[in-house]
């Protein structure tokens, strides 16, 4: 047991820190040390996972969780996203007057769920992780109870999330009925003997549950509402960490439990719908947070392109894309969170409220330039390399049409990403100044996070070493064509 705990030290640290934080907050309400405890615990977990990246892969807790390899990679992304979210949250929550200690405890507990989800080796672990994560995120979405918008989005997210959990659980039940096991590797036998109606029914329901959590169309309806109502740094956390963990679990299930080419067409169709719906609807958004929400839907589609190739290169490319996606979105949501302080105009989060920000706050303006160009996939930024990493395997797998649709969709996306920059820079300063409220100062901590994201986007755009690392998580060769009826 102690060996298992040592192997999943990040999970233990974050869990204990979460419990300690609840007790600490009960006795010292709104103490300044609360975010520090949360941030340092997440950072300790992050360092542990980074060290574990190069180590051997293994399992812990009677094969319930995986350690090292792709599990360590996904967990490092989740924990890194958590650290940055905590740093961005402190000034934001102080500004809106809700800097309560429970937020940080909930971020820690949500992270625990994501760590279990990303490292799961068993459907029960997937479910427990998914629920721990989701319940904490429902509360985090709506904890600004006085705002009716926040409560509304939390309720929508909760009802739809609970509904999708039903699909997920029923899928697990059917899969257990068909194969008699919850373990990923053992479940492979169900694919090998062709599976029955019950098996494929279970797999389909499981897929619906996953596609909901990664907000792929047509299960994306909750995303814009939830992101719009949630406090902005928390929305960034939901957009990055929870999607990363859910995709991490989906990739491993496709790779270990269901290696069959049956997925190629199904996932390709979902990828097309998701990319088209996300990008087209984002075009008409006037609210910056809703725009980013639809963009995150579109990005889920790009990741699905990598998965639908059915090649290990696609899976490792998807993992790399998730890393880039985390960095870009934490940065973009961070900038939006800071601009919301910009008086009444800013708190409405409309695109027009960004007018002239590029001149008045050059740091935020230029950081947003980098994030938007990276989101739309311009070289030499990491977003380009990420898109290449997911589209190239699709071409290799013969899905040229899918890659063409993906590239066309990202061309469409450039319109709404660059429109943000047009508003920020192309409006003259005098024209803009009428819209501007009192000046505000950028907290150093938030500025540091945004600069870090910018630097990372340049660094990962110029080196392929991370893709080589993620390639090493999977055995080479095609998984999809090995098996299947």
């Amino acid at each position, binding site marked *: *047991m102690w060996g298992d705990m040592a192997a999943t030290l990040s999970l233990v640290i974050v869990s204990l820190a979460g*419990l300690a934080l*609840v*007790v600490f*907050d*009960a*006795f010292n309400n709104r103490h300044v040390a609360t975010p520090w405890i949360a941030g340092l615990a997440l950072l300790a977990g992050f360092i542990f996972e980074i060290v574990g990246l190069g180590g051997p892969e293994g399992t812990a807790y009677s094969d319930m969780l995986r350690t090292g390899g792709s599990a360590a990679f996904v967990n490092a992304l989740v924990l890194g996203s958590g650290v940055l979210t905590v740093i961005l949250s402190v000034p934001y929550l102080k500004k809106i007057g809700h800097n309560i200690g429970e937020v940080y405890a909930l971020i820690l507990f949500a992270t625990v769920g994501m760590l279990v989800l990303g490292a799961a080796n068993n459907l029960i672990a997937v479910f427990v992780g998914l629920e721990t994560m989701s319940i904490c995120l429902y509360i985090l979405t709506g904890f600004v109870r006085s705002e009716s918008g926040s409560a509304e989005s939390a309720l929508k997210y909760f009802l739809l999330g609970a509904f999708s959990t039903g699909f997920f659980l029923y899928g697990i039940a059917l899969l257990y009925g068909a194969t008699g096991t919850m373990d990923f590797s053992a479940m492979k036998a169900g694919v090998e003997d062709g599976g029955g109606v019950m098996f494929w029914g279970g797999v389909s329901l499981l897929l619906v549950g996953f596609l909901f959590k990664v907000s792929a169309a047509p299960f994306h309806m909750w995303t814009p509402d939830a992101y719009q109502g949630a406090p902005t740094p928390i929305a960034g956390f939901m957009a990055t960490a929870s999607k990363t963990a859910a995709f991490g679990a989906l990739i491993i299930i496709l790779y270990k439990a269901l290696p069959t080419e049956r997925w190629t067409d199904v996932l390709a169709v979902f990828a097309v719908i998701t990319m088209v719906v996300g990008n087209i609807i984002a075009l008409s958004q006037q609210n910056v947070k809703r725009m980013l929400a639809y963009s995150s839907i579109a990005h889920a589609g790009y990741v699905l392109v990598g998965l639908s190739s059915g090649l290990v290169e696609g899976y490792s490319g998807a993992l790399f894309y998730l890393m880039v996606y985390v960095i870009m979105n934490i940065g973009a949501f961070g900038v939006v969170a800071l601009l919301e302080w910009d008086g009444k105009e800013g708190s409405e989060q409309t695109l027009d409220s960004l007018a002239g920000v590029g001149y008045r706050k050059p740091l935020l303006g230029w950081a947003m330039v980098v994030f938007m160009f990276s989101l739309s996939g311009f070289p030499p930024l990491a977003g380009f390399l990420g898109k290449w990493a997911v589209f190239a395997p699709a071409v290799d797998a013969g899905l040229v049409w899918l890659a063409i649709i993906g590239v066309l969709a990202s061309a469409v996306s450039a319109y709404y990403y660059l429109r943000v920059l047009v508003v920020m820079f192309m409006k003259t300063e005098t024209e803009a100044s009428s819209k501007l409220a009192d000046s505000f100062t950028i907290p150093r901590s938030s500025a540091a996070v945004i600069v870090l994201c910018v630097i990372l986007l340049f660094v990962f755009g110029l080196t392929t070493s991370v893709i080589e690392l993620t390639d090493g998580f999977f055995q080479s060769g095609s998984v999809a064509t090995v098996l299947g009826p």
Partner: protein
Amino acid sequence: MLSDFIPFFIQLGIAIGLSFTLLKAAALIGPKRANVIKQGTYESGMDPIGSAHQRYSVKFYLVAMIFIVFDVEIVFLYPWAVSFREFIAAGVGPGVLGVIFLFVIILAIGLVYDIKKGGLEFD
């Protein structure tokens, strides 16, 4: 496979049919002699005072939540206690005891939080 459940469905049909038949039969052939006492809300209890549609403090939901937590605790503790002798016989007694202590401590943290935040204070 579904044919294994045929007896179950037959029994389900009988149960539903019987209950509806009895209800309907009682309504059809039962004598109906209503009077004031019989029609009261509580036939042999006190007379109701005022309307039941009243506002009350939602603080009760906190009590309900704590109750559920400790209810679930019993669900876990009871089977644990029943099988504890077998754990001792298998030589894993101290470890299993430690696990259940951890479980109770986690629950207790929730209770401490609730009390400190004033969840049990009614004003």
